């Protein structure tokens, strides 16, 4: 079922946890709410569920305003971050809880529990108690319990936060498969951009209570709406330049800056994949020394230092690296294929973003 938020705000005292947020989730979609912790995404999820009341704005499910509909009658399934299983009940009783409350006949109840246990790979665990399950099993029980009464919407708060890396990958694949099979409208909260990219059909990005961008993973990655999104979604080299004689300049590096007033500051960002490296010191525009090589699996991360001491990060595939025959200490040349103007002087910039700016450090997490 479709979900829509219109100008929704939530204040806790003087603090705006969510600030005039509007977006829509279509029927059957799998959407991620992404952002750093404290960004307001969990509050948004809880407001959709009815566990928090919005201070202002409307929440609509299938076009109907549900602000005044209590949580019990919203027909949503909610999976809590710590799973919140009923520890005094067996797995089967946990899953059957919502059915019992909704007064399903005992026979239907048992059949539904069996069906879910099978669907979620929990056969034979029905009589276990939550403390006798592994983390991954607990999570599946929590999702099964939420789905048992056939909700129209499934909401998950950091569903992969509490399990280790290997299981996390399995659970992601499994969530996507389950969503494909059941096609129930699903919204999940995560702070992991990779997870959001991989699992969601669309991503809603929050930062400090405000909505930054909504879009398909690819769109968000390739056309970030602003600097925050660009930095949060992907890794980025960031340069602070000053315009002199029609070009923006920082030491050796220059970028065209037509129509920008003389002396103005300009911030430019480019992805490490957009940095082309050659072993021939004269092939590309800038010369640099290859300071460090980091092995990231399929990718190699290169740290290039220009003669004036600027450090630029590049990423190339392992094959490319081998083909070029690069080694640490080599003198190389590089160029920037694509870049983006992030900000001009006088434009506001979030504090957490500017905090990452140290003199001479031009990228983070690259």
């Amino acid at each position: 079922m479709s979900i829509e938020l219109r100008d929704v705000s939530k204040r806790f005292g003087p603090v705006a946890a969510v600030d005039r947020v509007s977006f829509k989730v279509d029927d059957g979609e799998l959407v991620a709410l992404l952002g750093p912790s404290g960004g307001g995404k969990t509050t948004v999820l809880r407001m959709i569920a009815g566990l928090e009341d919005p201070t202002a704005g409307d929440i609509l499910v299938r076009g109907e305003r549900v602000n005044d509909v209590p949580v019990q009658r919203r027909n949503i399934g909610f999976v809590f971050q710590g799973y919140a299983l009923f520890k005094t009940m067996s797995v089967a009783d946990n899953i059957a809880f919502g059915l019992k409350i909704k007064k399903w006949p005992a026979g239907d109840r048992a059949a539904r529990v069996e069906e879910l246990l099978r669907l979620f790979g929990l056969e034979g665990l029905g009589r276990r108690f939550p403390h006798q399950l592994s983390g991954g099993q607990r999570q599946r029980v929590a999702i099964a319990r939420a789905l048992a009464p056939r909700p129209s919407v499934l909401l998950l708060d950091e569903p992969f936060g509490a399990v280790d890396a290997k299981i996390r990958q399995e659970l992601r694949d499994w969530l996507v498969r389950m969503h494909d099979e059941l096609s129930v409208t699903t919204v999940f909260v995560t702070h992991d951009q990779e997870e959001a990219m991989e699992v969601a059909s669309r991503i809603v990005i929050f930062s400090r209570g405000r909505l930054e961008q909504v879009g398909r993973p690819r769109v968000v990655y390739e056309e970030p709406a602003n600097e925050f999104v660009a930095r949060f979604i992907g890794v980025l080299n960031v340069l602070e330049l000053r315009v002199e004689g029609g070009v923006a300049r920082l030491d050796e590096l220059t970028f065209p800056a037509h129509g920008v007033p003389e002396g103005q500051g300009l911030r430019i960002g480019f992805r490490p994949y957009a940095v082309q490296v050659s072993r021939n010191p004269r092939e590309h525009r800038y010369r640099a020394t290859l300071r460090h090589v980091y092995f990231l699996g399929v990718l190699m991360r290169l740290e290039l230092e220009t003669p004036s001491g600027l450090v630029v990060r590049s990423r190339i595939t392992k094959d490319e690296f081998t083909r070029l025959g690069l080694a640490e200490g080599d003198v190389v040349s590089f160029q920037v294929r694509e870049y983006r103007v992030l900000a001009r002087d006088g434009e506001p910039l979030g504090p957490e973003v500017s905090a990452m700016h140290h003199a001479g450090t031009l990228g983070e997490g690259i």
Partner: protein
Amino acid sequence: MSRAGGGKSGRGSEDPWWVRLLLVGVCVAFAGVFLVLPLANVFAQALAKGWQASLGSLAHPDTVESFRLTALVTAICVPVNTVFGVAAAWLVARFEFRGKALLVTWIDLPFSVSPVVTGMLFVLLFGLRGYLGPWLDARDMQVIFATPGIVLATLFVTVPFVARELIPVMQAQGSDAEQAALTLGASGWQAFWHVTLPSIKWGLLYGVILCNARAVGEFGAVAVVSGRVAGVTDTVPLRIEKLDNEYNPVAAFTLAALLALLALGTLGIKTWLEHRQHAGLARAQGPMESSDEH
């Protein structure tokens, strides 16, 4: 066991043997003189003239009446304070509101106020020369020197037991499971009955047991408000003192022995409950295990 040099013991403690012996000795002596000896004396005195005399002393009508009164007071106070304790713990553990610290302090108040002062307080409030006394008297209602006063004083004294026991338990558990029940369609009452109550039952039982023990044994506050009318407003502890004053040690100590037995039983149940509670907590927090326990 190999001992390196100096002849020190291989155990964690580095204290010389005589220090340990001294400490153990002091503890044993203290427990013996102040706990075991008096308790043994109670039973010895009770049975000084044989079983028959002891049991016979219990049949005195005033003693029987004191049992009835104590049972009545306990039967009122324990349920009332159980309900209040659960409600107060729920309020404190689940909600943020103005005056929360005040509420918690108030719950603790009976612990810090002398029971005699509590009794005086009720006399001052409901006594004939108190604030509400004349009004009540005009309507032919007697609180002080009557059962209602005893109930009120006992209620006040036993307020903290259940609430104090449950607040930390409920705070530690958090409200996620209850909220999960709400999202599954449960009403607040259903969430409490099916989810909250089962998860706090051991702590609750523990609080109820302690509350019960205190309700039965309360002396000071009740002594002030009861007026001690023989066969009418004497509870068991008051009756014990009266019998003792009347130079009837067998009857006094037989009643005292009964209370002591009740206390020992309470201690036993309390220890067992603590064990259950710890086991429950360990299971709830422990790693996965594949034991089958049902």
